[in-house]
Protein backbone atom coordinates (compact mmCIF):
# COMPACT_ATOMS: atom_id res chain seq x y z
CA UNK A 1 0.00 0.00 0.00
CA UNK A 2 1.76 3.17 -1.13
CA UNK A 3 1.44 6.31 0.95
CA UNK A 4 -1.00 8.97 -0.22
CA UNK A 5 1.67 11.34 -1.46
CA UNK A 6 5.37 10.90 -1.98
CA UNK A 7 7.65 13.89 -2.27
CA UNK A 8 11.12 13.09 -3.56
CA UNK A 9 14.18 15.36 -3.85
CA UNK A 10 11.94 18.36 -4.30
CA UNK A 11 13.68 21.67 -4.99
CA UNK A 12 12.57 25.09 -6.14
CA UNK A 13 14.88 27.94 -6.93
CA UNK A 14 14.17 31.52 -7.92
CA UNK A 15 17.27 32.64 -9.76
CA UNK A 16 20.13 31.90 -7.37
CA UNK A 17 17.95 31.71 -4.30
CA UNK A 18 17.01 28.18 -3.27
CA UNK A 19 13.58 28.43 -1.72
CA UNK A 20 13.14 24.68 -1.21
CA UNK A 21 16.23 22.52 -1.15
CA UNK A 22 15.97 18.82 -1.86
CA UNK A 23 13.26 17.76 0.55
CA UNK A 24 11.77 14.27 0.94
CA UNK A 25 8.71 13.14 2.82
CA UNK A 26 5.69 10.86 2.61
CA UNK A 27 2.13 11.64 3.56
CA UNK A 28 0.39 8.65 5.07
CA UNK A 29 -3.31 8.22 4.55
CA UNK A 30 -5.41 9.54 7.44
CA UNK A 31 -2.59 11.44 9.09
CA UNK A 32 -2.48 15.08 9.98
CA UNK A 33 0.86 16.64 9.21
CA UNK A 34 2.12 20.04 10.26
CA UNK A 35 4.62 21.79 8.04
CA UNK A 36 6.28 23.84 10.72
CA UNK A 37 8.82 26.57 10.24
CA UNK A 38 9.55 30.28 10.54
CA UNK A 39 8.49 32.76 7.87
CA UNK A 40 10.49 32.31 4.69
CA UNK A 41 11.28 28.67 5.42
CA UNK A 42 9.72 27.54 2.13
CA UNK A 43 6.39 26.28 3.49
CA UNK A 44 4.18 28.13 0.99
CA UNK A 45 6.42 27.19 -1.91
CA UNK A 46 6.27 23.52 -0.89
CA UNK A 47 2.47 23.56 -0.59
CA UNK A 48 2.10 25.35 -3.93
CA UNK A 49 4.22 22.72 -5.63
CA UNK A 50 2.11 20.00 -4.03
CA UNK A 51 -1.02 21.78 -5.30
CA UNK A 52 0.37 21.93 -8.83
CA UNK A 53 0.50 25.72 -8.86
CA UNK A 54 4.28 25.86 -9.14
CA UNK A 55 6.53 23.64 -11.20
CA UNK A 56 9.39 22.18 -9.14
CA UNK A 57 12.89 23.06 -10.34
CA UNK A 58 13.74 19.41 -9.73
CA UNK A 59 12.34 16.42 -7.93
CA UNK A 60 8.97 14.76 -8.11
CA UNK A 61 5.62 14.50 -6.38
CA UNK A 62 3.48 11.43 -6.88
CA UNK A 63 -0.03 10.77 -5.68
CA UNK A 64 -0.83 7.21 -4.54
CA UNK A 65 2.14 5.82 -6.40
CA UNK A 66 0.98 7.16 -9.77
CA UNK A 67 3.66 8.40 -12.13
CA UNK A 68 4.76 11.92 -11.20
CA UNK A 69 3.08 14.53 -13.37
CA UNK A 70 -0.28 12.81 -13.61
CA UNK A 71 -3.20 15.06 -12.71
CA UNK A 72 -4.35 14.43 -9.15
CA UNK A 73 -5.98 17.83 -8.65
CA UNK A 74 -9.45 16.32 -8.36
CA UNK A 75 -8.35 14.71 -5.08
CA UNK A 76 -7.07 17.97 -3.58
CA UNK A 77 -8.57 20.66 -1.44
CA UNK A 78 -6.43 23.77 -1.14
CA UNK A 79 -6.64 26.88 1.00
CA UNK A 80 -4.02 29.58 0.38
CA UNK A 81 -2.77 31.94 3.06
CA UNK A 82 -5.08 34.78 2.07
CA UNK A 83 -7.75 33.43 -0.27
CA UNK A 84 -9.44 35.84 -2.68
CA UNK A 85 -12.86 35.24 -4.16
CA UNK A 86 -15.08 36.93 -6.72
CA UNK A 87 -16.66 39.69 -4.64
CA UNK A 88 -19.70 39.83 -6.90
CA UNK A 89 -20.66 36.21 -6.13
CA UNK A 90 -22.52 35.06 -3.07
CA UNK A 91 -20.79 32.61 -0.75
CA UNK A 92 -23.12 29.86 -1.89
CA UNK A 93 -22.56 30.59 -5.59
CA UNK A 94 -18.82 30.43 -5.08
CA UNK A 95 -18.82 27.09 -3.28
CA UNK A 96 -21.15 25.59 -5.91
CA UNK A 97 -18.87 26.93 -8.67
CA UNK A 98 -15.82 25.42 -6.94
CA UNK A 99 -17.56 22.07 -6.47
CA UNK A 100 -18.56 21.91 -10.13
CA UNK A 101 -15.03 22.72 -11.26
CA UNK A 102 -13.81 19.78 -9.18
CA UNK A 103 -16.13 17.47 -11.06
CA UNK A 104 -19.36 17.36 -9.04
CA UNK A 105 -22.68 17.31 -10.88
CA UNK A 106 -24.94 20.35 -10.49
CA UNK A 107 -27.35 18.74 -8.04
CA UNK A 108 -24.59 17.24 -5.89
CA UNK A 109 -22.71 20.53 -5.95
CA UNK A 110 -25.70 22.44 -4.56
CA UNK A 111 -26.34 19.82 -1.88
CA UNK A 112 -22.72 19.52 -0.77
CA UNK A 113 -22.28 23.31 -0.80
CA UNK A 114 -25.24 23.77 1.55
CA UNK A 115 -23.84 21.11 3.89
CA UNK A 116 -20.35 22.50 4.01
CA UNK A 117 -21.52 26.11 4.42
CA UNK A 118 -23.59 25.08 7.40
CA UNK A 119 -20.62 23.25 8.81
CA UNK A 120 -18.32 26.29 8.67
CA UNK A 121 -21.06 28.49 10.10
CA UNK A 122 -21.86 30.51 6.99
CA UNK A 123 -25.41 29.26 6.48
CA UNK A 124 -26.99 32.62 7.23
CA UNK A 125 -24.50 34.57 5.13
CA UNK A 126 -24.54 32.13 2.22
CA UNK A 127 -26.69 34.31 -0.01
CA UNK A 128 -24.83 37.54 0.68
CA UNK A 129 -22.18 38.94 -1.65
CA UNK A 130 -18.64 37.91 -0.68
CA UNK A 131 -17.52 41.55 -1.08
CA UNK A 132 -19.26 42.24 2.22
CA UNK A 133 -17.65 39.35 4.16
CA UNK A 134 -15.25 39.94 7.06
CA UNK A 135 -11.76 38.42 7.13
CA UNK A 136 -12.87 35.57 9.38
CA UNK A 137 -15.84 34.82 7.16
CA UNK A 138 -13.59 34.69 4.10
CA UNK A 139 -11.28 32.25 5.86
CA UNK A 140 -14.25 30.02 6.68
CA UNK A 141 -15.50 30.31 3.10
CA UNK A 142 -12.00 29.28 2.03
CA UNK A 143 -12.28 26.19 4.18
CA UNK A 144 -15.72 25.47 2.72
CA UNK A 145 -14.48 25.62 -0.88
CA UNK A 146 -11.53 23.39 0.02
CA UNK A 147 -13.81 20.78 1.62
CA UNK A 148 -16.89 20.79 -0.60
CA UNK A 149 -15.82 18.05 -3.00
CA UNK A 150 -14.62 15.75 -0.19
CA UNK A 151 -10.94 15.84 -1.17
CA UNK A 152 -8.65 13.03 -0.13
CA UNK A 153 -5.84 15.41 0.68
CA UNK A 154 -6.33 18.83 2.20
CA UNK A 155 -3.55 21.41 1.79
CA UNK A 156 -3.88 24.39 4.11
CA UNK A 157 -1.44 27.29 4.13
CA UNK A 158 -1.34 29.05 7.51
CA UNK A 159 -5.07 28.48 8.06
CA UNK A 160 -5.24 30.25 11.41
CA UNK A 161 -2.42 32.79 11.50
CA UNK A 162 -4.48 35.71 10.20
CA UNK A 163 -7.38 35.14 12.59
CA UNK A 164 -8.19 36.63 15.96
CA UNK A 165 -8.14 34.28 18.99
CA UNK A 166 -11.85 33.40 18.67
CA UNK A 167 -11.67 32.77 14.95
CA UNK A 168 -8.52 30.75 15.50
CA UNK A 169 -10.25 28.56 18.06
CA UNK A 170 -13.22 27.98 15.74
CA UNK A 171 -11.04 26.94 12.83
CA UNK A 172 -8.90 24.68 15.02
CA UNK A 173 -12.05 22.94 16.25
CA UNK A 174 -13.18 22.43 12.66
CA UNK A 175 -9.81 21.01 11.70
CA UNK A 176 -10.00 18.61 14.62
CA UNK A 177 -13.25 17.28 13.18
CA UNK A 178 -12.03 17.21 9.60
CA UNK A 179 -8.90 15.25 10.46
CA UNK A 180 -11.12 12.30 11.30
CA UNK A 181 -12.34 12.21 7.68
CA UNK A 182 -9.41 13.11 5.50
CA UNK A 183 -5.67 13.55 5.30
CA UNK A 184 -4.45 17.03 6.14
CA UNK A 185 -1.19 18.83 5.69
CA UNK A 186 -1.07 22.37 7.00
CA UNK A 187 1.67 24.90 7.38
CA UNK A 188 2.16 27.02 10.46
CA UNK A 189 4.85 28.99 12.21
CA UNK A 190 3.33 28.31 15.62
CA UNK A 191 4.47 25.08 17.29
CA UNK A 192 1.47 25.12 19.59
CA UNK A 193 -0.96 24.87 16.63
CA UNK A 194 0.95 21.90 15.28
CA UNK A 195 1.02 20.11 18.64
CA UNK A 196 -2.69 20.67 19.12
CA UNK A 197 -4.03 18.61 16.24
CA UNK A 198 -1.22 16.86 14.37
CA UNK A 199 0.33 13.41 14.43
CA UNK A 200 3.39 14.25 12.38
CA UNK A 201 5.64 17.25 12.15
CA UNK A 202 7.92 18.34 9.35
CA UNK A 203 10.19 21.08 10.60
CA UNK A 204 11.34 23.22 7.71
CA UNK A 205 14.04 25.87 7.94
CA UNK A 206 15.65 27.79 5.08
CA UNK A 207 14.26 25.33 2.55
CA UNK A 208 15.64 22.24 4.26
CA UNK A 209 13.88 19.71 6.46
CA UNK A 210 15.54 20.14 9.84
CA UNK A 211 13.61 17.35 11.51
CA UNK A 212 10.60 15.19 10.80
CA UNK A 213 8.68 12.43 12.52
CA UNK A 214 5.70 11.72 14.67
CA UNK A 215 5.04 14.10 17.51
CA UNK A 216 5.69 11.36 20.08
CA UNK A 217 8.96 10.26 18.55
CA UNK A 218 10.26 13.81 18.33
CA UNK A 219 9.26 14.51 21.91
CA UNK A 220 11.17 11.54 23.28
CA UNK A 221 14.11 12.14 20.98
CA UNK A 222 14.54 15.65 22.26
CA UNK A 223 13.89 14.91 25.91
CA UNK A 224 17.29 15.95 27.22
CA UNK A 225 17.75 16.57 30.94
CA UNK A 226 17.77 20.29 31.49
CA UNK A 227 18.23 22.58 34.44
CA UNK A 228 16.73 26.04 34.30
CA UNK A 229 17.56 28.56 36.99
CA UNK A 230 17.48 32.21 37.87
CA UNK A 231 19.29 34.17 40.53
CA UNK A 232 18.86 37.63 41.92
CA UNK A 233 20.70 40.45 40.19
CA UNK A 234 23.88 40.38 42.19
CA UNK A 235 27.45 40.31 40.90
CA UNK A 236 28.60 37.35 42.95
CA UNK A 237 25.54 35.30 42.03
CA UNK A 238 25.85 35.99 38.33
CA UNK A 239 29.53 35.05 38.37
CA UNK A 240 28.70 31.81 40.09
CA UNK A 241 26.02 31.10 37.49
CA UNK A 242 28.56 31.57 34.73
CA UNK A 243 31.01 29.24 36.45
CA UNK A 244 28.44 26.42 36.39
CA UNK A 245 28.54 26.42 32.59
CA UNK A 246 32.08 24.97 32.60
CA UNK A 247 31.35 22.05 34.92
CA UNK A 248 31.86 18.53 33.57
CA UNK A 249 28.19 17.52 33.88
CA UNK A 250 27.07 20.39 31.65
CA UNK A 251 26.97 19.42 27.97
CA UNK A 252 25.64 22.72 26.75
CA UNK A 253 24.96 25.88 28.64
CA UNK A 254 23.39 29.22 27.98
CA UNK A 255 23.66 32.07 30.46
CA UNK A 256 21.94 35.34 29.74
CA UNK A 257 22.16 37.75 32.66
CA UNK A 258 20.52 36.21 35.70
CA UNK A 259 18.90 33.39 33.69
CA UNK A 260 20.53 30.16 32.66
CA UNK A 261 19.62 26.94 30.88
CA UNK A 262 21.98 23.95 31.12
CA UNK A 263 21.73 20.68 29.25
CA UNK A 264 23.24 18.14 31.59
CA UNK A 265 24.50 14.59 31.30
CA UNK A 266 23.52 13.46 34.81
CA UNK A 267 20.59 15.28 36.29
CA UNK A 268 21.01 13.80 39.81
CA UNK A 269 24.63 14.87 40.12
CA UNK A 270 23.93 18.27 38.65
CA UNK A 271 21.04 18.95 41.00
CA UNK A 272 23.03 17.93 44.04
CA UNK A 273 26.09 19.97 43.17
CA UNK A 274 24.17 23.08 42.30
CA UNK A 275 21.85 23.09 45.29
CA UNK A 276 24.68 22.39 47.73
CA UNK A 277 26.92 25.08 46.31
CA UNK A 278 24.12 27.60 46.26
CA UNK A 279 23.41 26.91 49.92
CA UNK A 280 27.08 27.02 50.92
CA UNK A 281 27.80 30.27 49.07
CA UNK A 282 24.51 31.90 50.08
CA UNK A 283 23.42 32.43 46.46
CA UNK A 284 20.03 34.12 46.29
CA UNK A 285 18.22 31.60 44.06
CA UNK A 286 14.93 32.77 42.60
CA UNK A 287 14.08 29.81 40.46
CA UNK A 288 15.37 26.30 40.09
CA UNK A 289 13.89 23.64 37.85
CA UNK A 290 15.15 20.22 36.87
CA UNK A 291 13.25 18.86 33.89
CA UNK A 292 13.55 17.95 30.25
CA UNK A 293 13.70 20.01 27.09
CA UNK A 294 10.57 20.46 25.00
CA UNK A 295 9.84 20.70 21.30
CA UNK A 296 9.71 24.43 21.86
CA UNK A 297 13.41 24.32 22.71
CA UNK A 298 14.10 22.30 19.57
CA UNK A 299 12.06 24.71 17.48
CA UNK A 300 13.85 27.73 18.92
CA UNK A 301 17.22 26.09 18.42
CA UNK A 302 16.55 25.24 14.77
CA UNK A 303 15.07 28.62 13.98
CA UNK A 304 17.70 30.52 15.90
CA UNK A 305 20.71 28.92 14.29
Amino acid sequence: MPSLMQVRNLSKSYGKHLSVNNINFDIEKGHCIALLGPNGAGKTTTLRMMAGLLLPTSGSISFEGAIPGSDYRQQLGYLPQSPSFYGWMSGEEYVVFAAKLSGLGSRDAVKMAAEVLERVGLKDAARRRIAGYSGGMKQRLGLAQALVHRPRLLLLDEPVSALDPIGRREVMEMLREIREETTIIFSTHVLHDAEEICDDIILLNQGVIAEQGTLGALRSKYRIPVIRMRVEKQEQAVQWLQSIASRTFVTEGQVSGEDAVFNVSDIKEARQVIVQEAAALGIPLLHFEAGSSTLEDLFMKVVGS
Partner: protein
Amino acid sequence: MDEINWSLLWPLLALQVLLAVIGLFSLRRTEATRGPKWLWVFILIFGNIIGSIAYFVFGRKDI
Protein backbone atom coordinates in the same frame (compact mmCIF):
# COMPACT_ATOMS: atom_id res chain seq x y z
CA MET B 1 -34.39 70.17 -42.00
CA ASP B 2 -35.55 73.45 -40.50
CA GLU B 3 -37.44 72.13 -37.55
CA ILE B 4 -35.74 69.77 -35.16
CA ASN B 5 -37.23 66.30 -35.13
CA TRP B 6 -37.69 65.67 -31.40
CA SER B 7 -38.92 62.13 -31.84
CA LEU B 8 -35.43 61.24 -33.04
CA LEU B 9 -33.58 63.34 -30.46
CA TRP B 10 -35.21 62.34 -27.21
CA PRO B 11 -34.03 58.69 -27.28
CA LEU B 12 -30.46 60.02 -27.24
CA LEU B 13 -31.15 62.04 -24.11
CA ALA B 14 -33.06 59.17 -22.53
CA LEU B 15 -30.14 56.79 -23.12
CA GLN B 16 -27.68 59.19 -21.53
CA VAL B 17 -29.93 59.43 -18.49
CA LEU B 18 -30.26 55.62 -18.46
CA LEU B 19 -26.47 55.25 -18.48
CA ALA B 20 -26.12 57.59 -15.50
CA VAL B 21 -28.93 55.76 -13.68
CA ILE B 22 -27.25 52.37 -14.20
CA GLY B 23 -24.07 53.97 -12.86
CA LEU B 24 -25.83 55.35 -9.77
CA PHE B 25 -27.49 52.00 -9.14
CA SER B 26 -24.14 50.20 -9.36
CA LEU B 27 -22.56 52.84 -7.13
CA ARG B 28 -25.17 52.23 -4.45
CA ARG B 29 -24.37 48.51 -4.42
CA THR B 30 -20.59 48.64 -4.70
CA GLU B 31 -18.47 48.31 -1.55
CA ALA B 32 -15.36 50.19 -2.55
CA THR B 33 -14.69 52.97 -5.05
CA ARG B 34 -11.52 54.73 -6.11
CA GLY B 35 -11.96 58.14 -4.60
CA PRO B 36 -14.97 59.30 -2.58
CA LYS B 37 -18.44 58.11 -3.56
CA TRP B 38 -19.98 61.60 -3.59
CA LEU B 39 -17.47 62.61 -6.26
CA TRP B 40 -18.64 59.77 -8.49
CA VAL B 41 -22.29 60.74 -7.90
CA PHE B 42 -21.35 64.22 -9.13
CA ILE B 43 -19.44 62.84 -12.13
CA LEU B 44 -22.28 60.49 -13.08
CA ILE B 45 -24.93 63.20 -12.94
CA PHE B 46 -22.99 66.01 -14.63
CA GLY B 47 -20.24 64.14 -16.46
CA ASN B 48 -22.33 63.12 -19.44
CA ILE B 49 -21.47 59.93 -21.35
CA ILE B 50 -17.72 60.29 -20.72
CA GLY B 51 -18.29 60.64 -16.97
CA SER B 52 -20.37 57.47 -16.94
CA ILE B 53 -17.76 55.51 -18.91
CA ALA B 54 -15.04 56.77 -16.56
CA TYR B 55 -17.06 55.55 -13.59
CA PHE B 56 -17.66 52.08 -15.03
CA VAL B 57 -14.05 51.58 -16.10
CA PHE B 58 -12.12 53.21 -13.24
CA GLY B 59 -14.58 53.94 -10.46
CA ARG B 60 -15.11 50.54 -8.89
CA LYS B 61 -12.51 48.50 -7.05
CA ASP B 62 -14.44 45.26 -6.78
CA ILE B 63 -15.78 44.58 -10.25
